[in-house]
């Protein structure tokens, strides 16, 4: 980009302002907690969090160094990298609990639906928040694993907030939802048929923090400070669920009573490289990508 | 047939209040041909619009056929002074004339014949397919006249309908209007600025004062019903009537200073 602010390397110890583009969902609780706990300021990082709805705004902003770091799901980053965008993961973001039936996202159906297992989804319509992305590839993987025909599943794009109503109104047969909508649908009598984040790989890394190749090249010090702060934040979040449940009510509109009952994701400090490989393979298998990008250039 | 009693009309709005008509009373019998003369701005157009039920009176009453006017009475036709703007620019000449006939129970052939005849009568037989804005001012005015004639109204109000045509055409149209009137026994109220015309056409001439408008004088035109341009106009009776209207109007006009204040 030509209008990018100049990238001047930071000197160790110097306090710098950084901006991180995130999505206001449960997944990014650690960075909010970390900011609150001073994990960033103690490393001389004056952190500002900017929320957007998704990658359309975050990726270009990171590439342009408007944001120094951004939050994105793994499949999107795989897509970006394979199209030649210089994104690079710097820190783990959020991971599946790995517990089938007790994850922070999953495919739900109406209580009285004939669909029993993921295999039954074949031939049915399933809502996902973004097509050709992590939601549908992992759901297909679950269907495949359960012995169904993944190509027969009819995916429809629908925003998470609209899914509970669509499911209840019978507009779709099933929906891939994440918290807090998972709890909301279950409350309304929906039934979980697949934990698609938990099934394809153990401890699937769902999303990560990333930056641009340029930033890595120009400002190693800043990146490593961010990585350290993130690590501390992730560890803290993973071990203090009550703190997490409290902080999410501050930056989302989730009410405290709902927050108290959510299934929280896991926040391991390291990216699960094998699971990234799995997602890459799924993306190639579902023809999202022609060939997997060189994971070495993407992984931290 | 047509009764105007103590009509008063005041326009107000946009910072201006004008008493267009002060107190006007007159009567037109069924089938009568009344011409109205009066100075510019004295309220003739306003009067016609009130009679046609297009404008509510401020005070007084207008009755057509004994019924107070609230909207346009049925069987009424008007030739507006703003003839150009009264034609539909999106309709061709023939369609403009035909439009008011749609409500009449006429066969298509009959309707077309009426339209053609009316347009031929005003000398526009070769402009049926033109749009009004492709016509000269006088031609537009004749379309408006043809529309009224083809409509065969019971009451016809005409507001300076010949203002835009040449002398020869005017004479022809005058005869046309009288013919139509005599054939259909239409009740006519005809506003004109031409005093000769007022006398030539009407059975009675109503002279209006300048505002606040009232009836200055009414004059019965005791000429035979059979009139023709050369004979009637050279009739001594015609000249006398004409002179009377002139003098009346001049007398009423005298105190005003048009053209005397400048240049």
């Amino acid at each position: 980009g030509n209008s990018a602010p100049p990238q001047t390397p930071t000197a160790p110890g110097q306090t710098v302002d950084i901006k991180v583009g995130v999505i206001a969902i449960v997944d990014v609780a650690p960075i909010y907690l970390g900011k609150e706990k001073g994990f960033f300021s103690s490393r001389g990082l004056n952190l500002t969090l900017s929320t957007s709805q998704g990658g359309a705004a975050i990726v270009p902003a990171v590439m342009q160094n408007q944001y120094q770091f951004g939050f994105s799901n793994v499949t999107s980053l795989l897509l970006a990298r394979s199209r030649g965008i210089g994104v690079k993961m710097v820190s783990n973001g959020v991971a599946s609990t790995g517990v089938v039936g007790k994850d922070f996202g999953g495919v739900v159906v109406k209580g009285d639906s004939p669909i029993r297992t993921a295999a039954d989804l074949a031939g049915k319509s399933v809502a996902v928040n973004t097509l050709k992305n992590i939601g549908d590839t992992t759901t297909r993987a679950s269907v495949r694993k359960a012995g169904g025909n993944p190509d027969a599943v009819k995916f429809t794009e629908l925003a998470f907030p609209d899914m509970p109503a669509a499911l209840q109104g019978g507009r779709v047969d099933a929906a891939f939802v994440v918290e807090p909508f998972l709890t909301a649908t279950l409350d309304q009598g929906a039934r979980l048929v697949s934990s698609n984040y938990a099934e394809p790989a153990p401890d699937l890394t769902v999303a990560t923090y990333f930056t641009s190749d340029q930033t890595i090249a120009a400002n190693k010090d800043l990146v490593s400070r961010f990585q350290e702060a993130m690590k501390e934040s992730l560890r803290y979040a993973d071990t203090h669920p009550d703190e997490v449940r409290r902080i999410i009510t501050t930056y989302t509109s989730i009410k405290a009573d709902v927050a108290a009952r959510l299934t929280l994701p896991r926040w391991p400090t390291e990216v699960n490289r094998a699971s990234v490989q799995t997602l890459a393979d799924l993306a190639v298998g579902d023809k999202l990508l022609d060939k997997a990008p060189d994971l070495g250039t993407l992984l931290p | 047939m047509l009764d105007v009693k103590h009509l008063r009309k005041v326009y107000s709005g946009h910072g201006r209040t004008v008493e267009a008509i002060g107190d006007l009373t007159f009567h037109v019998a069924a089938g009568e041909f009344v011409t109205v003369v009066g100075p510019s701005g004295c309220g003739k157009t306003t009067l016609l619009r009130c009679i046609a039920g297009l404008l509510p009176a401020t005070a007084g009453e207008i009755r057509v056929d004994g019924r107070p006017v609230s909207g346009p009475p049925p069987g009424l036709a008007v030739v507006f002074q703003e003839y150009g703007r009264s034609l539909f620019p999106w309709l061709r000449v023939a369609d403009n004339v035909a439009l008011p006939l749609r409500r009449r129970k006429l066969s298509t052939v009959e309707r077309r014949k009426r339209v053609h005849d009316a347009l031929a009568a005003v000398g526009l037989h070769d402009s049926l397919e033109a749009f009004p804005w492709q016509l000269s001012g006088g031609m537009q005015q004749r379309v408006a006249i043809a529309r009224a004639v083809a409509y065969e109204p019971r009451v016809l109000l005409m507001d300076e309908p010949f203002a835009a045509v040449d002398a020869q055409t005017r004479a022809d149209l005058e005869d046309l209007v009288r013919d139509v009137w005599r054939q259909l026994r239409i009740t006519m109220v005809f506003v004109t600025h031409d005093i000769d015309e007022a006398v030539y056409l009407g059975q009675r001439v109503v002279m209006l004062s300048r505002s606040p408008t009232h009836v200055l004088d009414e004059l019965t035109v005791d000429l035979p019903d059979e009139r023709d341009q050369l004979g009637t106009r050279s009739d001594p009776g015609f000249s006398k009537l004409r002179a009377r209207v002139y003098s009346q109007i001049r007398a009423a006009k005298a105190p005003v200073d048009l053209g005397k204040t400048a240049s």
Partner: protein
Amino acid sequence: MIRRLLPLSGLLAFALLLEVVPYTGVVSAVYLPPLHRIAGALGQEFGRDAFWTALLDTLRTWLTGLAIAVGAGVVVGVVVGSVPLLRAATASTVEFLRPIPSVALIPLAVLLYGTGRTATLLLVVYASFWQVLVQVLQGVTDVDPVARDTARSYGLGRLARIRWLVWPTTLPYAVTGVRLAAAVALILTVTGELVIGTPGLGKEIALAQSGGAVAQMYALIVVTGLVGVVANVVTRDAEKRVLAWHPAFRKEAAA
């Protein structure tokens, strides 16, 4: 008195509808809460500082964008409209650019201006500019030919003709353009905030949506709608003053 209440009657009926529909079972009250719950949420919003900041942010972006779009639309429209050659030469380009959705321009906007107000502003101006332009172009065409000939024969120069002939003729069209643009600009402001994440009502709506706070979300939508209503009252009022001569307003003033 009846005239006073008339504008409210429509809104009241609509409000009643909003209150009743959720009880009819057409939709679940969970997803479309009855009005009193929306009103409750609105009350809560009024108590939050963040709400007022967001509202002000939205108003600022909206009005700035609208002002730019209207200014540019009027100037470009009058200039292009009064030069037939220019108009013919630009027509195809205008038709090409108009249907390009602002959403497609989001990455470009972010790339150029980041995720701040300017990026949203770009979308707002882009979308609402065309609304004004098309109206003004039509208005310029509407000049009465006799009036145009009058101005020409009396030797009025190009600028004088624009000022005294073209502009008054265009004005009613331009006012409609402004009204259209005002809503489009508001929509794009909120959408930009929603998608890009520029601070403002849209971002609050996005937050409420993703948090599943349905009543709060509707409360914020109601605020957006009310901003639109107020904008219309203001333009209508201005219109009544500048277009007093226009046939549409003559009758009303005389009555």
